[in-house]
């Protein structure tokens, strides 16, 4: 059986690849898998793009406050799609959370800066962003937690979403941002080199890759609603970091806001650990 191959190293490498890496990527060839992934990725793109557009209409604090409606929208979409009912007490907690976010994000000179005008279009864009984010999260949860054979591994879902995101965003970037593209000039204006920019973008992409994976794994381990609720903690954490490391002013109202956000999030977490009767009743109603 023994023999000498015509080219040792190449044959050895080829055999190793063939034998040990047989299934490089299991490409999705079935439409029933491709459609939901493409839909989720497209909805996520709409959410990202509308958030970016909303930033042109209002300041960051107003945008984040408006987006704190996302848990309520996620609860509604989750009920409609997954038939998962939240305890009634959760809704007042979401309202308290919104109030807390508005206090925590309040600018120290809010009394003097009354020039920010919230337009109807701006609010509509933010609402679109929040709603699409809620739909994307709930659909991801549906796809990841499916009981039948069509469930997705979170990393696989993230992987297949990327080409769709690129395909959706490419025309927008070409039409909206590429005409203004002059990174070398813009970066030099701020005293940074192009190398610094590239290194920062590479770090950013690695962090985003990690975040995307962690997001989907967290949705699998918890739920789409839990992740949107805990996302509000980010504002409280941001406020603390700003005051500790960046020397931003901090007043009593912002501290109260942060405490409200933390308190309502923890209360929601406690509520979720209790045995639920609502979800059981929904399933029983559905079954009947």
């Amino acid at each position, binding site marked *: *059986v*023994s*023999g*000498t*191959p015509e080219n*040792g190293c190449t044959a*050895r490498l080829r*055999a*190793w690849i063939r034998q*040990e*890496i047989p299934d490089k*990527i299991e490409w999705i060839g079935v439409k029933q898998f491709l459609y939901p992934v493409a839909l989720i990725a497209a909805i996520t*793109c709409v959410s*990202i793009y509308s958030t*970016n557009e909303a930033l042109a209409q209002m300041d960051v604090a107003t945008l984040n406050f408006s987006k704190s409606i996302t848990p309520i929208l996620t609860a509604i979409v989750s009920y409609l799609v997954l038939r998962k009912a939240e305890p009634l007490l959760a809704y007042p907690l979401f309202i308290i959370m919104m109030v807390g976010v508005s206090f925590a994000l309040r600018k120290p000179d809010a009394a003097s800066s009354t020039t920010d005008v919230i337009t109807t279009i701006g609010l509509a864009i933010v609402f679109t962003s929040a709603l699409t984010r809620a739909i994307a999260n709930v659909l991801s949860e549906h796809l990841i937690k499916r009981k039948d054979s069509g469930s997705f591994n979170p*990393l696989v879902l*993230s*992987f297949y979403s*990327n*080409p769709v*995101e*690129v395909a959706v*965003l490419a025309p927008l*970037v070409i039409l*909206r*941002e*590429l005409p203004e*593209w002059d*990174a070398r000039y*813009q*970066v030099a*204006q*701020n005293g*940074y080199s192009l190398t610094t*920019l590239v290194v*920062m*973008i590479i*770090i*950013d*992409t*690695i*962090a*985003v*890759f*990690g*975040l*995307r994976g*962690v*997001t989907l*794994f*967290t949705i699998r381990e*918890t739920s789409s609603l*839990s*992740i949107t609720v*805990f*996302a509000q903690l*980010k504002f409280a954490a*941001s406020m603390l*970091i700003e005051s500790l490391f960046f020397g931003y002013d901090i007043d009593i109202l912002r501290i109260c806001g942060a405490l409200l956000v933390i308190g309502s999030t923890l209360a929601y*977490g406690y509520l979720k650990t209790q045995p639920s009767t609502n979800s059981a009743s929904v399933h029983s109603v559905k079954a009947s």
Partner: protein
Amino acid sequence: LEEQSTKRNAALQHDSVMIASLAWLTTWVALNTGLSFFNRVLFQQVGFNFPSLLTLIHGLTSFFYYLILIYVRRFCYVLRQIWSHEFVDPIPLSVSGKLSYMPIPSTPMTSPRSHM
């Protein structure tokens, strides 16, 4: 006793699920907050004010990072097999140092000394 044991196991399982969920959520919040600050620096201080382009770059790079992850994972798997002497080399080196083909056994070699 069996009932007590079942209850205790259920409580332990519930606790472990809670701890795992909390760990995932904490990691997610920390990563998300850190990334928000990093993006703020990138947009406001560095002056890279192209959010959609950045998202496009994220999509492209995440695709390639995932590919790298697949192959690194597979490579680690092969290395682990070699380390535990369970890897069956399709073209092992002969005693004389020349490459030679050998039939691949149907069952993996479990004894580490069989390669010696």
